[in-house]
Structures are given as structure tokens and as C-alpha cells.
């Protein structure tokens, strides 16, 4: 098998804008899937509304493109009914943390053995660039012309409310660490969340002063630093992995449990 077998390349080019970060996530996810032997008979993708949700259509897996915000109830139910499957959620920050925020809180609490990969571009991109739950305070958007008024949601803190969960922060610039984070998240027995900073040049970046997608990637390169080894908490603009105490997962072999 090869990485490209994980992708429906016949549907390329994708609908994503030139310079979008989502494709960089899809590429590393496909690579991890190849490494771990994930295929259409043992893995399903659950995606949510937003640009990121289209990823399910471009991969050689069965996938459920859920209603806006509802990836986790669908994913958790699938995992409960079919524990042998790897259940991977791919969605954006608005879908996951705003309209789906209540499900996130409670899925984390129940610690289902699913993996969430969050394309975190700090904006509602598909609808044109409105402020979202992760938009930094003060950011000018089309729904916050004088600057976003509130602090962004603390995703690390939300995930850490489950002492047995896995949280990783990475960026699309840091391809090696991103691949490592996705791989370890899929192997983690229990709830795993990969928070990927990813650029939206068309509906955010240019408005806040970046001239190109590459500018945004270079910004990730200079702004983000790896957390010190053994860190139990990531500071802002640190990449790394914070693992809780892993719980043995009852039943099934998907997403890391070793039956």
C-alpha cells in the first residue's frame, strides 16, 4: 500500500482554496493511516460541517459528513456499536468547539476511544471569515470589525478536564511533529485530541496582514516552539503532546487498545 491509496486522487483538485492548510493535514493523516495499516475495512472517518468536513469525501474510507457540530455524538455511537473500528473525527475549530462545544465537553468526560483532529484556523472560513470560538481577542474579522471581543476557548484545558485524555498541539508547518501527534493520538487508548494550527489565507490571513499562505506558514515556524520534554502543560505557541493517565479500554481493537 502507499499513501496515495488512502486518497481519492481522481476527485482532485479539491475544493479547498489555494494555500489552504487542510490538505497538509490530510496528507499526514493518510501517511499515518498507511503506517498503521488503517484501511476502509477497519476505519471510518467522521467529519463536520466547514471546509475541513470535505476531507471525508477525498479519502478512500467510508465516512459520515455529519450535521454542523455533531461529529462527536455520531462518532461515539459508532465506536460503541463497533468497538473494533478505528473512529477518526476530522473537523474544524468552529464545528468542534462552538456549535459542537457541548458534545466536546461531554464526550471528553466519557472518554470514548476516538481520535479528534481539529483543523484550527481561528476563523469561520467557509462562511467568509467570521470570528469563531478560537479567534484571538482583538482580531479583526467580518463579524468583529473592531476586534474580536472575547478570549478564545482553552481547548487544552477542556481536554485536560479528563485526566485520561490525550492532547497535542501542532501546526501544519511542523509536518514531522504533526505526523507524530496524529499517529500517537490514533494509538492512544481513549479520547485523543490533536489541535492543529492551520492557515486560512483567503478568509482570514489577508485580512489580518499576511500576504500569502507561505507568510502564515513562516509565522508558525517562528512563533511556535516545541515544549520542553516531559511538559505536562503547553504554553501558548508551544507544540507538544500532553498525555493523561491511559485507561485500559474495554472491548475492541480500534484506536489503540491492544486486543
Amino acid at each position, binding site marked *: 500500500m502507499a499513501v496515495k491509496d488512502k486518497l*481519492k486522487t481522481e476527485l482532485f483538485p479539491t475544493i479547498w482554496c489555494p494555500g489552504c492548510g487542510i490538505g497538509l493535514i490530510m496528507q499526514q493523516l493518510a501517511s499515518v493511516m498507511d503506517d498503521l495499516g488503517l484501511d476502509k475495512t477497519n476505519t471510518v472517518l467522521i467529519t463536520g460541517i466547514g471546509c475541513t468536513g470535505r476531507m*471525508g*469525501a477525498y479519502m478512500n474510507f467510508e465516512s459520515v*459528513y455529519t450535521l454542523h457540530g455533531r461529529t462527536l*455524538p455520531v462518532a461515539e*455511537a*459508532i465506536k*460503541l*456499536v463497533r468497538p473494533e473500528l478505528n473512529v477518526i473525527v476530522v473537523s474544524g475549530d468552529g464545528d468542534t468547539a462552538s456549535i459542537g462545544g457541548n458534545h466536546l465537553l*461531554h464526550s471528553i468526560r466519557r472518554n470514548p476511544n476516538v481520535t479528534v483532529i481539529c483543523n484550527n484556523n481561528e476563523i469561520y472560513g467557509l462562511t467568509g471569515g467570521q470570528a469563531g470560538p478560537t479567534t484571538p481577542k482583538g482580531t479583526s474579522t467580518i463579524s468583529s470589525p473592531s476586534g474580536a471581543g472575547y478570549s478564545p476557548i482553552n481547548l487544552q484545558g477542556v481536554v485536560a478536564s479528563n485526566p485520561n485524555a490525550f492532547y497535542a498541539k501542532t501546526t501544519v508547518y511542523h509536518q514531522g511533529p504533526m505526523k507524530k501527534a496524529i499517529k500517537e493520538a490514533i494509538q492512544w487508548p481513549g479520547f485523543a485530541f490533536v489541535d492543529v494550527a492551520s492557515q486560512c489565507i483567503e478568509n482570514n490571513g489577508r485580512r489580518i496582514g499576511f500576504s500569502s499562505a507561505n507568510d502564515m506558514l513562516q509565522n508558525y515556524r517562528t512563533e511556535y516552539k516545541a515544549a520542553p520534554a516531559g511538559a505536562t502543560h503547553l504554553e501558548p505557541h508551544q507544540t507538544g503532546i500532553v498525555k493523561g493517565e491511559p485507561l485500559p479500554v474495554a472491548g475492541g481493537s480500534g484506536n489503540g487498545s491492544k486486543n
Partner: protein
Amino acid sequence: MAKRLVQGNEAVFLGAVKAGASFFAGYPISPSSEILAQASVYASKNPEFRFLQEEDEIASANAILGGSLAGAKSFTATSGPGFSLMQEAVGYGHKVGIPCVIVNVMRVGPGTGMPTMPGQGDLLQTRYGSTGDYTSIVFYPSTVAECYEYSIQAFNAAEESRSPVVLLSDAFLGHLNEVADLDTIDVPVVPRTLEPLASGSTRLFSGVATYPDGEPATADGDEFIRQYYESRDNRLAVAEKYNFHEYGWNKDAETLVIAFGITARVARPLAPYFALFRPIRMWPTLDKELAEVAGKYKKIVVIEGSDGQYASVVEHMLLRRVERVPLLGGRMSIEAISEGLDRIGMLPAGFAVDKKSTVAVG
């Protein structure tokens, strides 16, 4: 199982198990909560039956969509306010074609309303609650034994139509205890019709308008219309096999009463004076079946637990005016029906409410 006392909500749950349901997701809400409790107890003794108590009804409805796609016959139970929260998922289930069952044990709305009192005000919500056009199949039993029977039929219709089917009940029926021997009720079970996830194919289940290969069809009206009529025609054809209704009481009377669910039983003391048409399949409407009998009657009166939701539907079905007896505020009683009939000058001469048995059984 011999004859024993069975509660309406319990009978719904037992019917689901009989139909092969193996996943329940729900959120507590009166007057449906016994179904959730039954599911949790059953799951603790039968690990192949999966149970999730969700954070809300939005999660519950989306979870049964996921559970069904994963391969389990799946269901949830709720009441009006929770059913409102589920509506977006109902539409998704219709669009994607996902078999599942939603039990709605109706109370008095709108808002939080009267949580433990019976109502029938979700009738239109079961037909038009979600956005866009879709074809609902909805059953509404009126005895505990029927709760069991039509629970099985709801799962059967869901499988055949590949859509979310609604089983209606109400606070009165859900909490009613009646003697029944459910083992004597023999309904053949329709097996699963949807290939479970990870089948080895690469299907995309999407609420977005898409072509069969998964590419977006979000601006192709012709493709939308093709898919819409295909699913509508399929669901109407399936519903034809489930045209449950009852026609009885005094068929020689001048007036036809239309009543359904618990109301048809509360109205039972009027049997000598009226004919009865009782739809069990509430949606799609029983146009042909009703038209066959309605022509014989000078007047038609719809007795229902809402301010004329079904009466308006009947007028539309028959293109004629009908009289209305709305039973509001949870007043599901023969007194309330008598008052209503009296108000419109239709109370039979000589009819008096028997104070000793204001709740009719049988």
C-alpha cells in the same frame, strides 16, 4: 410470558427489543423517561445491547444516526421539547436515508408546558418539524398491547423506508398499566437493510446534496429533484404496506368521530352514538382509507389533544369542513369531550358522563 400488568412505555421498549434494536441513546424527559431507564437496565444485563445517556437530545438523535450507520437498529425516546431539539437530525436521517426510530411520548406544550400531562400537539411537528421536504412515517397506538405491536412495526417501516420513523405515544398511554400478554402478539421482523460502516466500500454519508460519487451537487437542481422524488416515492410505497387504522363503533350513526391514540379510548363511552375512524398511521395520511368511509356521514368531528392540528389535516384530505373538539391542558377525559361536543351542539341527547368510570378502558 403470561398475562401481566405492562406499562405503555415498557411495552414500547419491549417491542423495540423484539424488533432487534441493539442501541439506545437518550436524555431523560418526562413522560418518556421509563424507556431510557428500561434501556439502561436491559443493557446492564445484555452487553450486546448498547446504551448511552447523552448530554442532550441533539446528541441523542445524532447518536442513533451513527449507531444505525454502524449496524445497530437504533432508537431514542423523548417528548415534545426534546423532539424539537432532534428535528435537524430527523431531516438529516431523511436526507441520508438512515433507518432509526424516535419515540415521542407527548406532553402539553409549547415550551416546558405541562411535563406530566398528556397532549397530542406534536402531530404537525412529526411531519413538518425539520427543514425542507421529506416524507415521514408515523404511527400512534392507543393501547399498551399496541405500543408493543407498533413499536415493532416502526422498526420494520424504518428499515424498509430507510428513514427515521416516529412512534407517537402520550403521557396518558405511556404511563398506563394494562394487562397484556405480549408473547401472543406476533409481528414478523424486517431484517437490517443498510450495509454497516466499514463494509469495504468507500461510501460517503452526507447531509449535503451530493452526486453518487460524493462530489457536491449543491447547485444542481435537476439532481436534487431526481433524488427527492426517488426517496419520496420509495417512502410512500413502503408506507402503503403499513396503512394501519381502525373503523368501528356505531357505523350506522350520522356522525363520524375521528380520534387517535389515547383520545380514541377516552371517547369510548360515546360508542353508541358515533362511528369511529382511528388512524394509527398518522403520516402519510390515510387519504384513501378515510375517503372510503367519510362519504357516509353527514358530519365529522375530530376529537384531539391539540387545537385542531389533525382537524385541519382532515379538512385538507377530504376537502370538507369538520367539527373540532380540542382537548387542551391535559384534560383527556370524557367530561372534557362532553363539554366540547356540547359547545358545538353535538352532544348526543341523553348522554351523561358516568362519574364512576370517567376513564374508559376497552
